[in-house]
């Protein structure tokens, strides 16, 4: 093994010793994350000089960031596409299929209605449907990235997933609002 293996330049997959693909071995990611943190976490160097504590903090920060990225399907996809040099254009490409946008608008209206009616059951049902839809998109993403290597199509799916992510945030906020 090379000594320089904790290289801040290596990508997140290399950091955890995982194959670079959308579908990943989650239990292994978790296991590697914990094993790495057990070595680099600042708690391991709390009694050491400042310089070493700083190194530990930077390494632990990187390990946390890498884990956060790979654990989440949408962040993992974004990251993979960026490694392939694909610009997802999440901010500026707003051209979406008409039916997808219509469905999104209906979702949002339903969330607002459920919140106003303080109907937690309705909100829960929306959440379940939304999660189902999200899983569907993620399954397509796996095919586009890993099997077909169609990164342009994958970028389109990531943009759709971003809408779903925002929707999930709105559902979350609706629960919070209903609580107060």
């Amino acid at each position, binding site marked *: *093994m*090379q*000594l*320089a*293996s*904790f290289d801040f330049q290596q990508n997140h997959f290399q950091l955890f*010793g995982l194959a670079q693909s959308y579908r990943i071995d989650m239990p292994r990611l978790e*296991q*590697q994350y*914990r*094993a*790495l*943190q*057990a*070595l*680099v*976490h*600042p*708690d*391991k*160097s*709390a*009694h*050491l*000089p400042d*310089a*070493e504590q700083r*190194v*530990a*903090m930077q390494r*632990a*920060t990187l390990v*946390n*960031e890498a*884990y*956060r990225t790979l654990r989440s399907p949408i962040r993992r996809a974004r990251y993979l596409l960026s490694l392939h040099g694909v610009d997802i254009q999440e901010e500026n490409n707003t051209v979406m299929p008409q039916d997808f946008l219509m469905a999104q608008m209906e979702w949002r209206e339903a969330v607002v209605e459920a919140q106003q009616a303080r109907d937690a059951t309705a909100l829960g049902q929306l959440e379940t449907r939304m999660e189902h839809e999200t899983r569907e998109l993620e399954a397509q993403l796996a095919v586009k990235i890993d099997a077909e290597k169609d990164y342009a199509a994958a970028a389109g799916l990531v943009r759709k997933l971003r809408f779903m992510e925002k929707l999930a945030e709105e559902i*979350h906020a609706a*629960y*919070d609002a209903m*609580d*107060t």
Partner: protein
Amino acid sequence: MALLQISEPGMSTAPHQHRLAVGIDLGTTNSLVATVRNGISVVLNDENGSALLPSVVRYAADGSVTVGEAAQAMQSEDAANTIVSVKRFMGRGLADIGEVSRLPYRFVDTPAADHKPGQGAGMVQLRTVAGVKSPVEVSAEILKVLRRRAEAALGGELVGAVITVPAYFDDAQRQATKDAARLAGLNVLRLLNEPTAAAIAYGLDNAAEGVYAVYDLGGGTFDISILRLSRGVFEVLAANGDSALGGDDFDQRIHCWLLEKNHLSALSPQDTRLLLTHARAAKEQLTEHGETHITAVLSNGEVIDNVLTRSEFQAMSQNLVQRTLQPLRRALRDAKLGVADIKGVVMVGGATRMPQVQHAIGEFFGQEPLTNLDPDKVVALGAAIQANLLAGNRGGDEWLLLDVIPLSLGIETMGGLAEKIIPRNSTIPTARAQEFTTFKDGQTAMSIHVVQGERELVSDCRSLAKFELRGIPAMVAGAARIRVTFQVDADGLLNVSAREMGCGIEAAITVKPSYGLSDTEITRMLQESTQHAQDDMQARALREQQAEAEQLLEAVQHALELDGGLLDQAGREKIEARMVALRDTLQLADHLAIKRAATALNEATVSFAQARMDKSVASVLAGKNISDLEVKP
């Protein structure tokens, strides 16, 4: 020295003496200190056998300070100079303290805008007969007593302390706590979240596995943390709470009830404190009894004589209990878990003794909460266990603690909106970088306002600091690219740095903490408090430096024996030369010389330490010995 820590799995580390470390629960009502002795965490008592130090500080006109029970005994008589529940003021401005009119103190408001040197910017101050005191100074008095208690009991200087804070404390409150510890002469090994400390004490004791909720209702703060315990890893999934809700509020309810019952208004500070003291006693009585008598004589001779029943008390405090359920639901949602996923509910904090709290929580989770631990002591016990680990006393059976930041960090954007940079419940340490640009031609400065909280409007969030970025090279609007990095360390504290990306110029940052003490203020306070103890300090510093230097030499020697092969000839010679230099200074009674030589040796070993850490990391990546490396409970 990293060299000690990262020996290969299965190999023992160098033998070294037990380093004295303590855990301190700096509570709203009571504070405690604990340590690990012979492998067991124990709370240290004072000379009268009391574990709990009332968090009460009294200032006298002659400048003398009393802390604890002696101060508590004077709280009605000398209410304005006897500070109770100072934790509620830590990192807080006057506007944050809701019950100002009901408190017997003379508050001094110091808005950040007209912050003068020597006063904590923005943080409320208290005028006493001994002068204006900041909550940081008051808390430091409590910590000093605990430090002395620990040093007397352990017979030596402390290497460091873990200080606990409510999980829901924001950056300003955390920083204030750390400042107080520094002021008390304590080396802070870590700020540890109170529910996490409790989980360590409970989890290690019971070899717990699964998802647990820690419900921590203290004197002035409420926390709920959801943790996953598995194979020696304590992973906080979500934290929530209310840093202005606690047992004190239950006292206030009884206090208000007394005022109403007796048609009282505008009481003197003394009478207010008197009734609050009786209210607290009544609350505690009602834990065991169905009703309680409250009798008191006010300063004007008026006699208070009321009977309060448990059901009356429960009715008047019901919405306080309900207020804890909202953060609970949020924490569960953030953790993406339901009530059924929770294996056990650990109850922490004296206020969880109230039957109505236990009942409500039992009902919410559909299971009896775990009350087999002393809710007053479990936080300090857990903190001591963690302090022992952080001081480097353990070998082998270590655990890993993955905690989170409880509140989102953001910056102010156009229109007074807060844009989240680091979302709540991110595992720490964590960092996020954000790029900014200029919006005017030739603009050379910009200011960044950092806030903490979940709300959309900046005015609804807590202002943490305003940063001035200066020295940006003059360019056309939008051409400068300034990368600002927000780093949250393992204490949950934020650090900000900025860099101009185009020409790589490090932009100067002026930090204006909205609610804190600057480093110069801390230094000044430290100097003031230790002037007369100057000689003691010198002697102490010398002993500490000698001990540290000896440990360092031992550790480096050990590391060289194990992994010397990782060094080239020149690297090894450099380290060995500096070891000789350090040994030479040990004979001198000059702690600064020892420190310089130790720092030099440390510097020479940094890359060696990294190489050794890399070697360990490499073996993880190679996939070998994974089971050896995994931490076990």
